[in-house]
């Protein structure tokens, strides 16, 4: 890039020289800082400060009534050693993340690819059809009809009429089934955003690459996807992955909607529902500590995902 200043000699700079070099670099790039400034200011005030505050609060006994007092690592020690629900929550969250995360990711990618193979008009229509549930708010409605615990639920009705079961199954409160069902819904509900981003990603691939590919002997869709489209979509693949981490590790809203909070024996508890639970008791310091642990988990996942996607980046 033209604006980069090449260092003339490769040696360690003295602190004074380093400051001077940074000063020159900042001076030369003033226009970039100006363009970044609006975002930087707003983002810092409304995102960085609240997040930093939450992390600081995790070391206090803040309860929204009294002035917070510093308690060191007490919240974390309590969380890891004496909280009986937390192990369940963390296990469920990891199961969610490991299963629904990749599943939803590939489903988004495949759907977007299929849609991209269609002609322009059909493509718009199909994109709308797949994105429609994300626009209409009543996302879970249809699933609670299917898995309703009485004999009128579609799943129960069907199984009973086939004679496979004698009495209705309480799908959503039975620990044997509820987590699986919630995972299915989670995959289904998380398709919207990732799918739409991938559709745009496919549109952003330079068409001249396909020309070159056709010359080089790419002869079917599958080869085109593997050798041309995906390698040139690295940034979008990473975007999808990070958003997937953010949504699958923070799963919990569907658990609350379906299995209640707390669910039977905490069978569908996740870290997020645990945060809801604790902050409902106004133990904000403790809730912040749980959030920070979740944050650290996601950062690890993020590093892992980057390693996996490395060859496309």
């Amino acid at each position, binding site marked *: 890039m033209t604006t980069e200043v090449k260092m003339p000699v490769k040696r360690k700079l003295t602190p004074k020289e380093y400051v001077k070099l940074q000063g020159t670099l900042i001076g030369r790039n003033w226009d970039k800082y100006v363009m970044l400034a609006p975002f930087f200011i707003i983002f810092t005030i409304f995102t960085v400060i609240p997040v930093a505050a939450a992390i600081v609060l995790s070391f206090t006994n803040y309860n929204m009534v009294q002035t917070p007092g510093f308690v060191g690592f007490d919240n974390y020690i309590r969380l890891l050693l004496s909280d009986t629900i937390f192990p369940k929550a963390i296990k469920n969250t990891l199961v969610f993340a490991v299963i629904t995360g990749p599943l939803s990711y590939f489903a988004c990618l495949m759907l977007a690819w299929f849609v991209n193979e269609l002609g322009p008009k059909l493509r*718009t229509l199909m994109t709308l059809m797949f994105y429609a549930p994300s626009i209409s708010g009543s996302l879970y409605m249809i699933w609670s009809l299917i898995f309703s615990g009485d004999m009128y639920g579609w799943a129960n009705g069907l199984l009973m009429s086939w004679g496979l079961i004698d009495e209705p199954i309480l799908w959503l409160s039975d620990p044997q089934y509820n987590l699986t069902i919630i995972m299915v819904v989670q995959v289904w509900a998380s398709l919207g955003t990732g799918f739409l981003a991938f559709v745009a*990603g496919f549109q952003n691939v330079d068409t001249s690459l396909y020309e070159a590919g056709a010359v080089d002997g790419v002869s079917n869709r599958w080869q085109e996807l593997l050798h041309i489209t995906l390698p040139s979509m690295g940034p979008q693949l990473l975007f999808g992955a990070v958003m997937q981490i953010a949504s699958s590790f923070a799963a919990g809203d569907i658990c609350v909607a379906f299995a209640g909070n707390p669910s039977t024996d905490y069978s569908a508890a996740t870290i*997020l529902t645990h945060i809801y639970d604790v902050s409902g008791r106004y133990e904000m310091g403790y809730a912040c500590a749980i959030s920070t642990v979740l944050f650290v988990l996601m950062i690890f996942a993020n590093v892992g995902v980057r390693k996996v996607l490395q060859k496309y980046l």
Partner: protein
Amino acid sequence: MKKKLASQVTATGEKRLLTAEDFMSKEEMKARKKAIKARNRRVRAKRAGRHARSRAGNIAIFVLLLAFAAFFMLPFVFTLMQAFKPAEELFRYPPRLIPRNPTIDNFIVLGQLTNSLWVPLSRYITNSVMVSVTGTLLHVIVASMGAFVLAKYKFPGSKTFFTIIVYSLLFTGSVTAMPSFIVMNKLNLINTPLAIIIPAIGGSFGLFLMKQFMEQIHPSIIESATIDGAGTFKIFTRIVMPSVKPAWLTLIIFTFQGLWNNSGGTYIYDEAWKMLPTVLSQITASGIARSGAAAAASVIMIIPPLLVFILTQSNVIETMAYSGIKE
């Protein structure tokens, strides 16, 4: 003489030269038409720079997608149908998807309910539209500008800042509500629409999305524009933004939808600045008698995001034309 033989009067009375087609059987004609179609498809595909797609494959994909899509549409159709059901059908159990006696009573009731409001409904609609439109526009501009310099230039602090942005996406929002409220309060934003608009402008999701798309733009294009004397801002408006059109059109959908469904939550409790979702849920929340109106309200809430979606999405698909700009 030869010429006369080869011409023939057609049914409409005009003369034309005989071609090979005139001597073919029906089957031969069919085969020939098929061959021509296949050739045209190959030619078209070659012009578009892609290998020819098999028709069978296209149909298989379409059928598969249609089956999936039908299932995906269910909640959407269900919401729509609820609004046209008379009261007794709304409470039918198990519910039926299609109403037996469709009616628009629910919309009429909703209209009556909104007419009796202390503040006219138009005020709430204006609030919501204003917040959604300004918030979306400013967010797309501000986030794209930031994304552009972070994606295409290196300067002190650029990498660190971007890492912070990505990590901020990973922090659960539920516990930051309290600190956010304190920040808003300190800035005197509580009870103004700015409490919704300003934080939305600096949303990290949008910047991340835009930055990832802009990374695909080849550095040489920006370099040559710089050599030609274009400033950073000019490169941004003239080269970068047009070539990532699918990205910002998609971002418009996400942002608009988010803002439109934003109820104002804990930040706005002044009646004059309340937004549509809050008001609609308030007037429809009063008991079973109003669930018809609630169903109608949810249909009305879907319409604006749906329009934005259709407008932008059909544009996303047109942008295939950009070629050679990226690596």
